[in-house]
């Protein structure tokens, strides 16, 4: 081909052959399958065994593709009918369609990844893997989804590229499968030799561009609130912890406290309103029966079912401070609500169960992924008003022969002579003298309990015929929070004070990185609420060392002075958890409000920057004006005149000798004459354009600059000037 170098400049780096490309495609497909299968680990599909059983053949065929050829054709013919039978049996036996669908997806991925693939099957594999990854992310909202989807995107794009390039290559003869025999090591070495590092860097840059564009799209995509939107299908794999359910047996809460994982994250608009020791109240249990506290049927009748709501109004009027809770899945369907509030807002409409008598709020079903809600005007009160209870109790007590349901369950103690006698013996000591009021009784009872028992997460109750709590009360064994709460409850009830047990969390630590509360499962706790015989339930925490035995004197609305130093956590756990919080806050909970906030922030920052810049310019302007208005004498004029003249001279010199300077600098850095390069560039441009007829001399001069001996700067300038004139006159 005349006029063109037919040899490629990169002839020494051989391109991948068709077989090698097929092998790369096979490898990427296997890798994609493994990534998506591992994403299912987040889902807890009732069988890590299934995931391992699927990963093993995929990995084996990825490393040794020849194994796939050894699978008989009959197997491939029977696999799809087998899958249909499997999924039918799965649905019938487990009655959970979504989990069955996901297991089917896993099996299909295994079939496609291990079997022979043409481009059509490659695309099927890609779609199956994408489905699994996305579903895992949606159902679990795990932080690991970010890394997974980014890795998945990179591998998927490379896979599609390999498929497209493979289709454009020479087709391999049917049945040859030479690509399956190429060793991985040899292939990787070939890849390393044939791929230019600059292309790899360019691909990396393009991938970052994809991520950047995706981020911008994610932020910019308009969010609409659809009132009747469908909630996503839920996978019922996570169940509530038994310590936070309707029935709590002794020891359930203590079991939860063995776990250090974070159960709840809470951020507040104003840290001044964070109490010294927050109680995250969840479940109130009124009925006691043989070692277990539960919500009585009578109390359950006060439950109000709210179908698909987003907002719930409370009793308070002020909407400050604002708390936002991020509640992990698998804790409880009861939402932590420390006190009274003005308004509770959910991220999406959900069916709820509200019980205003005890101040609890629960989801209809256990949440399967992180659940967020906002509470405006929340106060951490130790008191809850219940003006109707006193009247109800009097009515129930006055009506003999009635049922023993709520609210009489608040006074019920274990029956039996020995049980009652044991309680009375303790109360004889506590109630000596005039009958104490509720507050005084509480103080005496707590003091007694502290003298009799010490706190321990491991406790043993002596054997006997009496009720388990009563046996513990009369002993001197150490006890956990449930025993203390249960014991206090029985004593108070026997003394005639309505009391109930409450479970939830207490305390927590303040994450200094993202400024929020981290409440762990190890903060699970049980305490009591005592009715003060007027209209108020008061929080009582009889567990020794809890630091808040009676909270009757605290003003819930007053600022508390911020976070105590001993609560602040700064370790690696806090750092990692802050990352998760960032994920929840900025990504999972990103909505229309967040977009508006971002726009407002951007606007504010831009305006402030603009104002600061204008102020700076004004300042400079004033300085220059003052400088100009200052008196000018001969010395000053000479000095500044000289500076200006020197500057102008330097500038003129730099412009005049720019080619010389440029050449000197470039020669030092690279050793190639930039004038020759520039001349070559002009020659190439001229070759493509239609020049005027008299331009031959100029072309000759350019060629002399390009190929001839080095010339002076003046000559170079003149030539380039003439070149530019010719260029402007071209057709």
């Amino acid at each position: 081909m005349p006029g063109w170098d037919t040899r490629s400049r990169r002839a020494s780096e051989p391109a991948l052959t068709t077989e090698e490309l097929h092998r790369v495609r096979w490898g990427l497909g296997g890798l994609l399958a493994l990534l998506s299968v591992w994403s299912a680990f987040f889902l807890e599909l009732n069988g890590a065994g299934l995931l391992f059983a699927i990963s093993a053949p995929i990995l084996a065929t990825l490393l040794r593709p020849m194994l796939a050829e050894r699978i008989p054709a009959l197997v491939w013919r029977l696999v799809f009918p087998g899958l249909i039978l499997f999924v039918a049996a799965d649905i019938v036996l487990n009655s959970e369609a979504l989990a069955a669908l996901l297991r089917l997806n896993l099996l299909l991925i295994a079939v496609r990844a291990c079997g022979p693939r043409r481009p059509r099957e490659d695309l099927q594999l890609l779609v199956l893997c994408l489905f699994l990854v996305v579903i895992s992310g949606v159902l679990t909202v795990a932080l690991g989804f970010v890394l997974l989807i980014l890795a998945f995107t990179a591998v998927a794009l490379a896979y599609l590229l390999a498929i497209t390039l493979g289709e454009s290559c020479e087709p391999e003869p049917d049945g040859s499968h030479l690509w399956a025999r190429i060793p991985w090591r040899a292939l990787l070495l070939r890849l390393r030799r044939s791929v230019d590092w600059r292309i790899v860097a360019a691909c990396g840059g393009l991938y970052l561009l994809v991520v950047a564009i995706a981020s911008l799209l994610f932020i910019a995509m308009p969010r609409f609130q659809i009132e009747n939107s469908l909630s996503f299908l839920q996978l019922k794999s996570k169940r509530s912890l038994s310590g936070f359910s309707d029935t709590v047996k002794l020891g359930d809460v203590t079991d939860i406290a063995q776990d250090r994982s974070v159960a709840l994250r809470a951020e507040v608009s104003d840290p001044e309103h964070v109490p010294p020791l927050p109680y995250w109240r969840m479940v109130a249990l009124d009925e006691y029966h043989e070692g277990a506290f539960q919500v009585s049927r009578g109390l359950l009748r006060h439950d109000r079912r709210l179908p698909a709501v987003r907002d719930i109004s409370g009793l308070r009027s002020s909407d400050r401070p604002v708390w936002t809770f991020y509640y992990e899945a698998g804790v409880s369907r009861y939402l932590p609500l420390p006190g009274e509030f003005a308004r509770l807002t959910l991220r999406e409409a959900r069916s709820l169960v509200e019980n205003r008598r005890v101040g609890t709020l629960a989801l209809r079903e256990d949440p399967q992924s992180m659940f967020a809600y906002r509470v405006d005007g929340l106060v951490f009160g130790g008191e809850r008003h219940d003006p109707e209870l006193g009247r109800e109790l009097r009515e129930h007590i006055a009506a003999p022969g009635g049922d023993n349901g709520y609210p009489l369950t608040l006074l019920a103690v274990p029956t039996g002579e020995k049980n009652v006698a044991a309680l009375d013996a303790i109360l004889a000591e506590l109630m000596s003298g005039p009958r104490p009021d509720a507050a005084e009784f509480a103080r005496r009872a707590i003091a007694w309990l502290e003298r009799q028992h010490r706190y321990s997460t491991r406790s043993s109750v002596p054997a006997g015929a009496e009720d388990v709590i009563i046996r513990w009360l009369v002993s001197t064994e150490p006890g956990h929070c449930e025993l203390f709460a249960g014991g206090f409850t029985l004593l108070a009830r026997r003394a005639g004070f309505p009391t109930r047990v409450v479970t939830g969390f207490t305390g927590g630590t303040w994450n200094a990185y993202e400024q929020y509360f981290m409440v762990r499962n190890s903060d699970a706790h049980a305490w009591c609420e005592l009715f003060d015989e007027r209209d108020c339930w008061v929080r009582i925490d009889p567990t020794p060392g809890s630091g808040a035995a009676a909270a009757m004197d605290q003003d819930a609305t007053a600022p508390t002075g911020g976070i105590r130093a001993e609560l602040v956590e700064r370790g690696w756990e806090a750092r990692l958890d802050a990352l998760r919080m960032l994920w929840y806050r900025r990504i999972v909970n990103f909505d229309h409000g967040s977009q508006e906030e971002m726009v407002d922030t951007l606007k504010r920052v831009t305006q402030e920057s603009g104002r600061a810049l204008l102020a700076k310019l004004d300042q400079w302007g004033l300085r220059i004006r003052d400088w100009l208005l200052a008196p000018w004498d001969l010395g000053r004029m000479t000095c500044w005149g000289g500076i200006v003249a020197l500057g102008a001279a330097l500038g003129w010199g730099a412009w005049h000798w720019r080619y010389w300077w440029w050449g000197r600098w470039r020669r030092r850095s690279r050793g190639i004459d930039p004038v020759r390069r520039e001349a070559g560039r002009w020659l190439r441009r001229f070759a493509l354009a239609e020049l005027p007829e008299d331009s031959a001399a100029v072309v000759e001069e350019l060629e002399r600059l390009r190929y001839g001996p080095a010339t002076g700067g003046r000559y170079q300038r003149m030539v380039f000037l003439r070149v530019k004139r010719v260029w402007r006159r071209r057709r």
Partner: protein
Amino acid sequence: MNEEATTRAVAAEAGDWHGMAGSARARLWRWVSWRELLWGLLLPEKRQRILPTIPGLVLLVLILAIGLAAYNTGNNILFITLALLLSSLVLSGVLAWLNFTGTEWRLVAQPPFRVGQEAEVVVELRNRKKLLPTYALWFDVAARTTGASARLYLRRRLEVGGSDRLCWTYRPARRGRETLVLSGMGSLFPFGFLRKTMGASLYHEVRVWPARVACNFGGAAVARFQLESREVARPGGGNDLLGLRRYRAGDSHRRIHWKASARMRQLLVRQNATEAAETFALWIETSETLWTRAAQFELLCRLAATLAEDLFRIGRLDSVAIDSETPLLVRRIRDVETWLDRLAVLEPGPAVRKRAEPRVRGALLSFEPEGERGVCARLGHEIAARV
């Protein structure tokens, strides 16, 4: 006879290259009006198309489904997935554009084109990019008259600064003018979602020579002519100097007579003589009264072409003529090719009662129909060849 330039060697100049390299660079250096810029953003160039493939349709359906699910549930994980899918589409467009950029191509027809013989039509490519290779292109070539077409695939990567040739073997079926078209190019690169095609619109007109025909040239008339003819000195490849003539493009530099050129101040070349026997001249009458059957006229063209080549090969062809045109002297292979080009497009002409024979050197071979299907070549009144 040589009024029209024949399109034999149809690609030689660099200006024949097409593609996004040359045009992009040229565009950089000329002023683009605002109107052109805006229209360019809104409307693509002519014959540029982007259509989704089946995987592309699947992707679009996926995007739609995920988008609907995202808006319906308000789930940000779905929004993330949607954003990644959309940005992958954007990346696909960027990479496709980068793949086309810097790639140039041209259509080269390697003559001769002859009925029934395979000829090569080549698409030459080159990659003028500085960093990225070019992958996975295809080119659609076609012969307009016969309707034959093919799609040529670039199966290897086109390295930076490299070039490649894609060949199409084409067998013309009919004599005459043939237009070879490079109608478009396309690619599925990089991910196979979108089929991007660009109209190329490169045309090359070639002339398809008539096929050779088996004929017996000889007979009593030819034998007698050869006996009676004398040796003559003619320009040729011998060692005897015949004369000097002006330099023509294509002459060997070794034949330049430097002394004479210096004296005459123009380049002169030696013309050597060769002794040759008496020659023949071919004369075709195209009167439609003479050639009433199209098949016979075709046979005429084939016979004339065959005889011209065979006689030239043995150095016995002096000139060729059609109707009353000035005879074309045949001295070089290019003259024969010119004659074949004329035969390629020859059609029966207007009816003429009687034409005068051209004045030629050597024996005049004329052609006339023989019977209903045959054609014969006459030397005087006797038949010298027939088919």
